[in-house]
């Protein structure tokens, strides 16, 4: 970088959304040169091979230069705009623009995701493989726990920014991502029941494999908590801040209840178990959906603005749902989460039992169509954030505000 | 002197019975039998045979020879005229061989060559009467027919047919075993056995435990088949006037290892050994079972039907190929003067 550049110039960089992202493309600029922005204001719509999303301003100031053109491929962390106070000279800005242009025009160097890129590791938790990925050095350990049907990529807008000051890990819960899918009886190898008929006469059930019979005994909630503890042991982390979304919130609470001293703070995002009401249709629909046509409208319900629901997002979810064992796992979780059409768990009681062992924060999207935001009231003793314009996925819809909530919670833990 | 006529009968079904399954007996290909006949035709032509009577079959032997004659045209030495015995329905059973040999005898054949195994030789012999018989073996699982190169056998048969070598000095009368069951009569050239099997079925006998009595016209120590049992304990030569009777029992004290079929060398219990005189009738002890002639089950018999066996000296007049060719050498019959 050019030492001459004025420190007051703040580069707006192409964010890294997801492990495999190497470049992004601006599909539309929302601001223009000269606009004033506050932290959290929308700057530009960005599209990657995995996802499209809106980049928000991290710091207040004036947009003095737009560097990247619409439709141009920009490498991750390449500068796409410059925010600077009115006092900074045009000459300094133009110099910074030239540097930024050089990076964009050079295209993506081979090892663009070299240093600091999160490395995928696996922990063996009583015979089950649990995948997790960490980023960032120093600071406290933060473990991000996704919800029903999600995976560690759902934290792609948060993990990188949080990693600036903390060691941030995200895991795939059993039955999700690349972790073992076998949630049902015992920790066995990954062989779902073959569908092959043995005698010519008896035609076994046609593919997909795995009988439709309800899963056997075994306690999925326990298995999920074991996985989180397993990852903490594998890092290793004697003390960690937990961030749990939806079902992941209940799992975070369960882990905290097991070993309160080990959990420094809890940030619960639209956590399950704090009320009876839930969009049971979404849960069952997601577990049962077989085709893109059935899945697309369901995924739309997760977001306040379903612009985020691109074909690629639906295809990725469909690809996940077709992995062997996933259908059985999801049905087991639906049985765990629902009693009839209502929520089964009682997170409030778990939280109460924790007393004030650690600072607790709850974050909810005002427009959450899965678990109503009113249930935030039931999270006793927690600092509450209700975010406008966010549905059930505030950590993807409003990442900057969720990041703020997490940072505050970590600070309160001291 | 009349025409020098040779009869040739070939059995397309020989070498294909169940012994291919229960032992390692080989399958003697039809094409090879056809080749043997063609080699003989060349030999016959060389020594001046006028006519050959050839049996017809549905197995492809006569067809192959028929096509070969078509291709032969003027090749040297010229083949004699070949007449295919036609006009009778082919039943693909032993009856075909009997019918062919009888027609050859009535047509004045001076010598009859039969290609096959013991079974074919046995049937041909029963119809050949006094006409000299040259039994050529197709395959190695045989006792009676000679294992001989067809061309040389052809020369021998041809020399007899043309009268160049008088038959008397070069043929030997073989012994014959006659077995009667009620009104039915069968003859055997090598042996007659009583089997405890209840049905003729697949004919062959390969389990010695089922054989209780064995009558042998002759028994050579280097034979294959049931007579090999006697061949190891009481050998009898082809020219000996008598034969031998063995009574067998699996649990008999005296056990002898015998090659009773290709790849089948098994211990056989011998209870008693008795000389078989030519002429007198011997009755079989067994009350029921099947009589096997030359190792093939043929006559089933029940209680009250006591099969009778008799050794006779008036079997077929077998051509001694070596003797014929030795005579030809003495008489220079195959020598020619180049002009």
């Amino acid at each position: 970088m050019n030492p001459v550049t004025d420190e007051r110039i703040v580069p707006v960089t192409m964010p890294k959304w997801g492990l495999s992202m190497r470049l992004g493309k601006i599909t539309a600029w929302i601001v223009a040169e000269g606009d004033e922005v506050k932290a959290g204001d929308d700057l530009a719509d960005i599209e990657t091979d995995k996802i499209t999303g809106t980049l928000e301003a991290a710091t207040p100031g004036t947009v003095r230069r737009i560097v990247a053109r619409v439709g141009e491929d920009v490498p991750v962390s390449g500068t796409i705009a410059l925010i600077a106070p009115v006092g900074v000279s045009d000459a300094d800005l133009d110099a910074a623009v030239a540097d930024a242009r050089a990076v964009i025009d050079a295209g993506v160097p081979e090892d663009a995701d070299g240093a600091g890129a999160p490395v995928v590791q696996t922990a063996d938790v009583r015979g089950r493989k649990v995948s997790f990925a960490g980023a960032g050095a120093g600071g406290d350990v933060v473990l991000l726990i996704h919800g029903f049907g999600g995976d560690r990529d759902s934290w792609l807008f948060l993990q990188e920014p949080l990693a600036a000051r903390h060691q941030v890990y995200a895991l795939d819960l059993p039955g999700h991502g690349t972790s073992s899918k076998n949630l049902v009886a015992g920790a066995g190898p990954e062989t779902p029941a073959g569908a092959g008929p043995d005698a010519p006469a008896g035609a076994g059930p046609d593919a997909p494999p795995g009988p439709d019979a309800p899963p056997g005994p075994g306690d999925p909630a326990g298995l999920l908590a074991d996985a989180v503890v397993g990852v903490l042991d594998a890092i290793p982390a004697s003390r960690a801040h937990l961030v749990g979304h939806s079902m992941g919130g209940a799992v975070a609470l369960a882990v905290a209840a097991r070993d309160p001293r080990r959990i420094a703070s809890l940030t619960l995002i639209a956590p399950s178990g704090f009320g009876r009401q839930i969009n049971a249709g979404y849960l069952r629909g997601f577990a049962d959906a077989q085709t893109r046509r059935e899945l697309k409208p369901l995924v739309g319900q997760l977001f306040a603005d379903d612009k985020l629901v691109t074909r690629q997002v639906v295809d990725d979810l469909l690809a996940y749902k077709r992995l062997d064992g996933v259908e059985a796992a999801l049905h087991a979780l639906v049985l765990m989460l629902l009693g009839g059409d209502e929520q089964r768990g009682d997170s409030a009681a778990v939280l109460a039992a924790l007393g004030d062992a650690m600072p607790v924060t709850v974050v909810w999207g005002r427009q959450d169509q899965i678990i109503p935001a009113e249930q935030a009231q039931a999270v006793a003793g927690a600092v509450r954030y209700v975010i406008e314009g966010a549905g059930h996925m505030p950590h993807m819809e409003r990442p900057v505000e969720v990041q703020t909530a997490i940072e505050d919670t970590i600070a309160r833990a001291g | 002197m009349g025409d020098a006529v040779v009869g040739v009968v070939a059995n397309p079904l020989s070498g294909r019975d169940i012994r291919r399954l229960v032992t390692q007996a080989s399958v003697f290909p039809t094409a090879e039998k056809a080749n043997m006949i063609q080699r003989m035709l060349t030999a016959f032509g060389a020594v001046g045979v006028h006519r050959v009577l050839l049996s017809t079959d549905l197995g492809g032997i006569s067809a192959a020879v028929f096509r070969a004659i078509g291709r032969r045209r003027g090749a040297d030495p010229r083949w004699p005229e070949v007449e295919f015995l036609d006009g009778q329905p082919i039943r693909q059973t032993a009856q075909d061989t009997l019918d062919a040999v009888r027609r050859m005898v009535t047509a004045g054949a001076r010598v009859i060559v039969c290609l096959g195994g013991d079974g074919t030789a046995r049937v041909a012999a029963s119809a050949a009467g006094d006409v000299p018989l040259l039994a050529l073996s197709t395959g190695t699982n045989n006792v009676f027919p000679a294992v001989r190169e067809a061309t040389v056998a052809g020369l021998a048969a041809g020399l007899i047919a043309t009268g160049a070598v008088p038959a008397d000095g070069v043929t030997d009368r073989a012994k014959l075993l006659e077995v009667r069951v009620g009104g039915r009569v069968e003859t055997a050239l090598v042996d007659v056995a009583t089997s405890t099997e209840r049905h003729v079925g697949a004919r062959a006998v390969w389990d010695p435990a089922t054989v209780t009595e064995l009558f042998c016209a002759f028994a050579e120590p280097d034979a294959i088949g049931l007579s090999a049992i006697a061949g190891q304990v009481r050998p009898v030569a082809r020219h000996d006037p008598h034969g031998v009777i063995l009574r067998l029992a699996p649990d008999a004290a005296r056990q002898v290892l015998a090659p009773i079929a290709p790849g089948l060398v098994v211990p056989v219990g011998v209870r008693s050994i008795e000389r078989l005189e030519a002429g007198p009738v011997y009755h079989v002890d067994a009350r029921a079972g099947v009589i096997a002639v030359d190792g093939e089950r043929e006559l089933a018999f029940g209680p009250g039907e006591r099969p009778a066996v008799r050794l006779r000296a008036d079997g077929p007049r077998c051509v001694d190929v070596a003797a014929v060719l030795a005579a030809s050498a003495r008489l220079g019959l195959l020598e020619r003067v180049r002009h």
Partner: protein
Amino acid sequence: MARNITYREAINEALTQEMERDDTVIVMGEDNAGGAGAPGEDDAWGGVLGVTKGLYHKFPGRVLDTPISESAFIGAAVGAATAGLRPVAELMFVDFMGVCFDQIYNQAAKFRYMFGGKAVTPVVIRTMYGAGLRAAAQHSQCLYPLFTHIPGLKVVLPATPYDAKGLLTQAIRDNDPVIFFEHKALYDMSGPVPEESYALPFGEANVVREGADVTIVTLGRMVHTSLSAAAELAASDGVQCEVIDLRTTSPLDADTVLESVEATGRLVVVDEAHPRCSIATDISALVAQRAFGALRAPIEMVTAPHTPVPFSTALEDIFIPDAQRIANAVKTVTGWNP
């Protein structure tokens, strides 16, 4: 979540994982292991293009080399399928169907119906197809329309490594006879493929590119040719093409095709097979019959010509439908006025 592997590796992985999961799965074909009986290394070839490499040692007794007797071993695979095995037989080139087609269309395809629903014949026949490798007329044909015509057979044509693994896994688990077409030119193409097993349902087309102006229905290798045509058209003329990869011609996902044509009103069908009685004519008839009202221009078909596949590079390159011909067809339907 998924690493990049090639189309060939994806197929090998599907075979390996299914053989690990179900010991009734067996693999047979000419040189599937390779070198049987010959003194050299046993797993010499692992299939003529290495697709079955490594299976021989991993699954002793379940990877069978065969003499060159397609009727016998394809028929044997069909017979074994009725007796509790799940054979994956390889007909090296689909061009060889002539020497074993009776065992496929008269035996395997008809058993269930002919025997009143009593037979189950879970056999998979993998085969290579497609031009472009200068293999000339008897090693470059498509021929999938012939199999598509036969009731009782399912016909599958993966275009990407991800689809190849998922569709082959489904084919092996499927309880009906499946003919699995692998394009020779795609073996070395790589793409993201999850490590874990997964099965893709038959009869679900894949919209590989969204677009509002023209619907391009295609399959197999032509999916990639159509995508490059669509990219050119978007950049040059701003025409947005929706590219639909059929993935299976039997069963056929008619709804996705009809839905798209009802939206765009314009259809181009791209099919590497010959023009007569092909998938192109089949889709055109379907749309003409069930979405005629939506059509704003006659249907365009881009296919190989009605000739055997030529050998010389100059001819084979113009034999195979290319992006330019597809773009021309798109321009024809967009520029058409009654």
